[in-house]
C-alpha cells in the first residue's frame, strides 16, 4: 500500500502562543511494501508525521492517501494501520494473549479465527511460549515484539513504528533490528518507522527520509543518501563519526582551506563549506599535499585508526577553530604530534554554499 502525503502541514501552538510548524508542507510518497525510516533530530517533525499518518493527530493542511484512498479525515481506527509505540503501550493488566487479541475482539473477528491468528502472530514474533504472561514479566525486547504482534494481528495496510528500538539496550537493539526487518520482509507490509538514530535507520530501511524543522531534506536509499547528501544538514546528520566541515574558498577552480590547496573543481569562484567524510582522507606519505596538520590524538580500534586533529583557528583566515577526525589504516602507525599530509577522496568530499546547499 503506497502512502502519499500532499502538502501536509501541522501547526502547534506553543506555550507562548507562537505557531510552530511541526510538519511544513510535506509532499512525500512512500512506496508500497517498503520499510521506510523517518529520520531526523528530535523536534524535526518525524514523530508528528507518523502520528499524522496514523490519524492520532490531525493535519491543518494537506491530504494523506493510502493507495487510492483518501484517509485525511479518517479516525485512526478506520485507517487500517498498525502502530507500535515508543514504550510499546502494552496494556499492563492484560496478558500477552489478551493484548494481541484485543484489536481482533474490537473488530469482532470470529473467535476461533481470532485465536488462531493470535497464536500465528505470536509465533511470527517468536513469543508462542509466553502467551499467558503479563507485560511486566517480559524483557524489553519481548515487549517490543508483543507490540509488533498486536499491531500486525489485524492485518493492517500500513505498519507504523515510533522509535521502536530506543528503549532497548545495545545488544537487544541489534537483534530486534534484524527481527523487524525479517517480519517486514515476511509480511511485505508497507512500514514506516521513526528514529533519531541514523545508524539504525540506515541499517534496516529500504529507504530513509531525513527531516529537519518539519521539512523533508532528502529521501532515498540509505547508501545513496549517505553518498549524495543534498545539503550540509543531511551530510552532517548521516555518518559516524560526523562529516568534517571546513570553511573554504574556490579560487581559479581550486579549492583552498586557509591557503592550503585541497582539491580541484569546475565551480566558479566563491566561498564554500567543504564536507569531508572521516574516511575520505588519504594520508599522503610523500608529504606533497598542502593539506597538513599536527595530530593531537590517535585512537586505534581494530583495523582503523582515528586521527583527531584540533585546529586552533586563525584570525582572519578561513580556518575556524574545529576538531576534525580522519579514519585511516591502522598500519600507518601515526602518533600524536606527527605532522600528517592529507589527500582527499573526491567522492567523499561534498561542497556546499554558505547556506548549506550542495554545489554541483
Amino acid at each position: 500500500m503506497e502512502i502519499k502525503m500532499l502538502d501536509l502541514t501541522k501547526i502547534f501552538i506553543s506555550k507562548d502562543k507562537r505557531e510552530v510548524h511541526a510538519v511544513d508542507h510535506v509532499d512525500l510518497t512512500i512506496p508500497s511494501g517498503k520499510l521506510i525510516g523517518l529520520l531526523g533530530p528530535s523536534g524535526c517533525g518525524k514523530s508528528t508525521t507518523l502520528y499524522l499518518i496514523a490519524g492520532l493527530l490531525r493535519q491543518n493542511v494537506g491530504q494523506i492517501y493510502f493507495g487510492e484512498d483518501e484517509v485525511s479525515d479518517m479516525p485512526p481506527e478506520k485507517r487500517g494501520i498498525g502502530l507500535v509505540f515508543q514504550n510499546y503501550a502494552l496494556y499492563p493488566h492484560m496478558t500477552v494473549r489478551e493484548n494481541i487479541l484485543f484489536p481482533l475482539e474490537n473488530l469482532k473477528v470470529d473467535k476461533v479465527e481470532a485465536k488462531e491468528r493470535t497464536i500465528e502472530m505470536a509465533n511470527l514474533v517468536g513469543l508462542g511460549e509466553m502467551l499467558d504472561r503479563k507485560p511486566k514479566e517480559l524483557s524489553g525486547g519481548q515487549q517490543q515484539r508483543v507490540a509488533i504482534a498486536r499491531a500486525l494481528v489485524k492485518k493492517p495496510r500500513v505498519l507504523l513504528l515510533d522509535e521502536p528500538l530506543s528503549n532497548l539496550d545495545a545488544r537487544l537493539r541489534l537483534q530486534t533490528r534484524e527481527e523487524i526487518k525479517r517480519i517486514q520482509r515476511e509480511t511485505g507490509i508497507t512500514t514506516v518507522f521513526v528514529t533519531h538514530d541514523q545508524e539504525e535507520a540506515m541499517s534496516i530501511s529500504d529507504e530513509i527520509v531525513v527531516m529537519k524543522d518539519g521539512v523533508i531534506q532528502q529521501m532515498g536509499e540509505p547508501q545513496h543518501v549517505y553518498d549524495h547528501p543534498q545539503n550540509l544538514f543531511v551530510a552532517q546528520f548521516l555518518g559516524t563519526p560526523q562529516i568534517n566541515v571546513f570553511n573554504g574558498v574556490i579560487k581559479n577552480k581550486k579549492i583552498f582551506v586557509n591557503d592550503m590547496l585541497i582539491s580541484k573543481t569546475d565551480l566558479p569562484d566563491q566561498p564554500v563549506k567543504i564536507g569531508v567524510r572521516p574516511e575520505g582522507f588519504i594520508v599522503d606519505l610523500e608529504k606533497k599535499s598542502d593539506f597538513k596538520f599536527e595530530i593531537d590524538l590517535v585512537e586505534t580500534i581494530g583495523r582503523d585508526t582515528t586521527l583527531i586533529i584540533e585546529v586552533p583557528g586563525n584570525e582572519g583566515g578561513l580556518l575556524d577553530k574545529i576538531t576534525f577526525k580522519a579514519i585511516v589504516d591502522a598500519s600507518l602507525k601515526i602518533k600524536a604530534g606527527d605532522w600528517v599530509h592529507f589527500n582527499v577522496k573526491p567522492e567523499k568530499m561534498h561542497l556546499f554554499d554558505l547556506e548549506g546547499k550542495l554545489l554541483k
Partner: protein
Amino acid sequence: MAEIFVKNEKSYKAKKILSNVLTYSFLGVIALIVLVPFYWMILTSLKSTEMIEAIPPILFIKPSDWQIWNYKALFELVQSGPRAGQPLFPFFTYMKNTIIVSIITTAGTTITTILAAFAFARLNFKGRDTVFAIIIATMMIPGEIFILTNFLTINKFGWYDLMNQTFSDALLAMTIPFMTSVFYTFYLRQTFKQIPNELYYAAKVDGTTDFKYLLKIMIPVAMPTIVTIIILNSMGAWSAYIWPAMVTTKDQYRLVSNGLRGAFTDSGSGRTDYGQQMASAALVTAPLLVVFFVFRKQIMRGVSRSGIKG
C-alpha cells in the same frame, strides 16, 4: 494484505461533533444538578417565609423583591441593654474561630498524617501492619460513639473548666482530638508507597536519617497529595457541630455550624426562619468559595498531580 478497507467517511466530522455535543450536554446536565442546590440556597436566602412556602415554588425573584433583610439581620446590632452595640448574631466571631480552628487542625493533621503515613509506608517496626490494621478499623466505627470518652479525656486534661475556660483551652479541646486522620493517613500512605525503594536505599547509603529523608525526599515528592489533604481537611471545621458545642463553655468560642443550627430556630414555637438560615449558610459558604476561587488553579493542580495509585 489490506483487510480493512474503509471508504473515506465524510460523517466522521459530524460524528465527532455529535460526540462532543453529547459529552458537553452530559457534563452540563451534571453541572446543573450540582449547582441547583446552591442556587436554591441563595434563592431561599432571598425569600420571605411566605415566599418559601408558595405553591408552585418561586424559581426566580426580581431583585426588587429580594429579601435582603435576611442578610441584614445577620449583622444587626443589639439596640439596648448590656450587650448594646454587639452583633445579634456574632457572625464574625464564629468565622474567626472557625478559621483559627481550621488552621490549627489542618496544620496538626498534616503533620501527624505525614509522620504516620511515613511510618506505615517506609519504616519497619514490629507490629507495623497490625497497628495499621487497627487504625483502618477505627474508620469503621461511627465517630460520635467516641464523644463521651473523648469528653472525659478533655476534661482530665483540664481543658473544659466551666468557670475558667480560656480561648486557648477551648482551641485545644476543639482541635487536639481531630489532629489525626485515619482517612488521610491511608491516602498519603498510598502515595508514599509509590516512591521507589531505591530512593530510600540511596539515601540510607548516603547516611541520611529517616527524618531527613522524609523531609528532603518524601515530602517534596508527595507534595501535591499533601496539598490536597490540606485543602480537603481545612473544610472540616466548617461542618463540625456536636463536638465544638460540647467542649466550649462560652458562645463566643463556638464555630459557624453551631451558630447556623441554633440561631434561627425560635425556642418557643420551634420554627426555623429558613430564609435567614439560608442567608447565613450562604454567608458561611462564601469565604470557602472565595478561597477556592482564588486558589483554584493551585488546588486543582495539587489535586490533579497527587497521583494516587494503588
